[in-house]
């Protein structure tokens, strides 16, 4: 090693021959600092990229969670309902059986209105103006009259009595209350007068926030305070049921053939190329296939989980075949050879020895395929699973929608309260995906231990 100080002395002597022989080492030494700096910079850029990736995950999840939280509780209000028989158009003197029938048909809306006007007397004692009446009635969910009806039908003794009943508030009022406590100031979609009424109700301890069970037990609705995900969840389950029922056996059978039986020839190559390409075809193209062939040629019903399941099967089949093949390939050849040596036929080897060994891997692959199908939206839009459906589907040929499509529909809705509903539905979807993927991970680790 040459001392740096000596180097500089030699340089000063400006002997050309000596500098050229020494300069390489010298240059390296001199540039080391710079190069190490570059190295550190490069490393930091890499670290930054990884952290940026983390940040994206955190921002995405926390943003959606923050938006979703308001949807899980809901404000209810206690009103003093007068079940006056003449307001309800019920003939109070009738027999029990006729009374029950009349209660089902009674006019709860007008009775509710009249009770509300009594609850909010004007200072002057005169009745409310028409506009005020309309505004007052708008504070309550359109579902309130049905809550009142159910209350009366379960406890018929309430007839002709004044009873306190809890009913839902309208979604605009609900959002107003969630943004801050009832201040009496006019809100985004609430007039000054309405805000004052809410303040009055709140100070009388008549407003209460409850956990929103109906989000999980109700179906879609035009009214945000009533809309729930049960219909979409059922649709998702039915669709995934069809998908699993078709794609699992078909995928495993296809993989078994390609791994265990297929001769190495053009036909096999052609199938493999097809599978690899299908795995990369945009999902919306599968929707076009479903629309043009499954619905228009085979005449299966539009919007049905059956068609959705078939389309998702075709879409996830390549994933399942590819992962199943990997699992089958991982079975040691010694097992096959031992079974063949004992005189088992090729088919017996495959079904009694290879398949059981490969099962955990195959199931993991199938679960991943199902997770992919669970989050898919675009092809289902093509086959009409995008309709507004209030009924919970009961069979695979009923009109239905699925959770991702429900999210898409709600995200498009103009009502502000649907924003929280959408985020909450997304949280449910992500939770489902998490559960599915965790199952796959647990299975995989169990499999690897063996």
């Amino acid at each position, binding site marked *: 090693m040459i001392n740096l100080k000596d180097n500089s002395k030699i340089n000063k002597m400006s002997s050309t021959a000596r500098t050229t022989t020494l300069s390489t080492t010298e240059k*390296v030494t001199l540039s080391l600092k710079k*190069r190490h700096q*570059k*190295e550190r910079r*490069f*490393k930091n850029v*890499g*670290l930054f*990229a*990884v952290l940026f*990736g*983390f940040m*994206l*995950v955190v921002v995405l999840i926390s*943003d*959606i969670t923050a938006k979703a939280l308001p949807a899980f509780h809901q404000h209810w209000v206690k009103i003093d309902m007068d079940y006056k028989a003449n307001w309800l158009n019920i003939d109070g003197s009738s027999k029990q059986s006729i009374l029950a029938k009349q209660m089902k048909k009674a006019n709860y809306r007008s009775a509710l209105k009249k009770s509300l006007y009594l609850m909010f007397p004007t200072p002057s004692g005169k009745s409310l103006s028409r506009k005020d009446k309309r505004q007052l009635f708008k504070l309550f969910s359109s579902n309130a009259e049905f809550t009142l009806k159910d209350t009366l039908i379960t406890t018929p003794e309430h007839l002709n009595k004044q009873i306190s009943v809890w009913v839902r508030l309208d979604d605009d009022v609900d959002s107003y209350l969630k943004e801050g406590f009832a201040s009496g100031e006019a809100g985004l979609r609430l007039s000054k007068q309405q805000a004052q009424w809410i303040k009055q109700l709140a100070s009388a301890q008549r407003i209460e926030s409850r956990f929103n069970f109906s989000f999980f037990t109700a179906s879609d609705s035009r009214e945000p305070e009533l809309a729930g995900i049960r219909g979409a969840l059922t649709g998702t389950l039915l669709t995934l049921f069809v998908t699993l029922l078709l794609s699992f056996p*078909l995928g495993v*059978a*296809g993989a*078994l*053939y*390609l791994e265990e039986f297929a001769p190495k020839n053009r036909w096999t190559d052609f*199938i493999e190329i*097809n599978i*690899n390409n*299908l795995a*990369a*075809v*945009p*999902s*919306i*193209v*599968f929707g*076009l*296939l479903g629309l*043009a*062939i499954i619905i*228009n*040629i*085979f*005449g299966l019903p539009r919007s049905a989980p059956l068609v959705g399941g078939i389309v998702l099967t*075709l879409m996830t089949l390549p994933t399942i*075949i590819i992962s199943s093949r990997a699992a089958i390939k991982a079975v040691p050849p010694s097992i096959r050879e031992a079974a063949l040596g004992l005189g088992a*036929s*090729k088919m017996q080897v495959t079904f009694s020895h290879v398949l059981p060994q490969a099962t955990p891997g195959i199931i993991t692959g199938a679960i991943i395929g199902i997770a992919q199908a669970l*989050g*898919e*939206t*675009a092809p289902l*839009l*093509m086959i009409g699973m995008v309709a507004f459906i209030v009924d919970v589907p009961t069979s695979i040929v009923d009109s239905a929608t699925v959770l*991702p*499509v429900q*999210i*898409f529909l709600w*995200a*498009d809705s103009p009502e502000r309260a649907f924003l929280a509903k*959408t985020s909450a539905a997304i949280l449910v*979807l*992500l939770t489902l995906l998490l559960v599915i993927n965790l199952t796959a991970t647990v299975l995989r680790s169990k499999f690897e231990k063996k």
Partner: protein
Amino acid sequence: MNSPLLFTVLLCLTLFSYWYGMKRSLKVAGGNEHKKNLTCLPQQFGLLTAMVCGLPALMTLLIFNSAEQLVIEQLFTTTLSANIQSLSSIDLGLYLNNIHSLASSEASKTLLTNINSSNELAMQEQYKAASTLQALKQQARWLKTALVLVIACVSVIVLIKKFSLTFPARQKSETIIRGLLVASSAIAILTTLGIILSVLFESIHFFKSVPISDFMFGTQWSPQAAMRTDQVGGSGSFGAIPLFAGTLLITFIAMLLAVPIGLMIAIYLSQYASAKLRAFAKPMLEVLAGIPTVVYGFFAALTVAPVIRNVGESLGLSVASESALAAGLVMGTMIIPFVSSLSEDAISAVPNALKEASLGMGATQSETVIKVLLPAALPGIVGAILLAVSRAIGETMIVVMAAGMAANLTANPLDSVTTVTVQIVTLLTGDQEFDSPKTLAAFALGLMLFITTLGLNVLALKVVRKYREQYD
């Protein structure tokens, strides 16, 4: 019987024939104690019988069901009176719809009484037609039930007649199973064929009314105009250039974010990160890949787009509320894990000897990465990027929710653009008749999408394969 019931019956019949086949084989052998005389196990006889019972009948059921509607329609149209048959296709369709809803909503008895009671001749004719349709459907149902059950029973009887001590039941059932395996693997081919046929036929249909050159090179896209009947084919309003340009713009923005970040993540995780960080980072990034696209769409439309708009406006720029930038950035986020995992594969596929030689010569880690690893892994990385591009082009939900509908021909990322996939969704959701150029245009766009993504995938696979050969 309706199809689900028939299917259940068939299933029971199949289970029964498994048991029956076993019994018959034992009988042939001469009792349970002589079953060693058979060349195959009784269970194998049972399996063969069950398959012979179920498979042909099931196939018949499926074929019958898929052809049923078409045949009934044909038969029914021939029974209609001449003046109705001579109606234009749209009016005829309306008329048929009417009859169908009558036939499915009314009981056959009410229809018969209505024929006599209604005094209008046209109504009488409709009721009569509906009643004919019902009768046809009834006949079809009977035919189907009879056909399926007869086929199931006859094939079992024919099979059982052949049973003998040396009957090769196992070999036969294995041949059938093998056939089933081949058929399942061929579904991939059928799917590809189905995709090609469905988009190709409708596209050809479309190109009859709109010339292919207008579609490929036209700069005006306004499919709504074609809804007017006096505007034949809506000429001039199906130019897809703005859609292609919009798709490319959003894809470009997405790549601008995803490629550098994804590549740096791949380099850092494969060269620098400790095992602990890797174990944590990989699943974390997989989360990004596993989030459904509709969630990204929501995030783009309701979180990112307003932020970009506010930032842009505070800088004095005019930003569209559905800017290409928002959709592109979020799409880029979605693609980061895709790029990073594929590039990591490519980098770790480079032989270690190359890396060690470079480090041994005194190069720093970063110099080794930039001058040795990346050039060696370049084909793999290019392949990864091509696959990512193909994915971005085909991505639907993010752009449907976050990009606009208006077909602007612009390169300004703050403007609103529309993409091929957005237009496919817009054209095909909602009710419209299937033969209008508006609907068919969606299939033409689908064809373009399919060809592009297929081309990119084939290209990517070729690039990767060529590079693999280099080191193997």
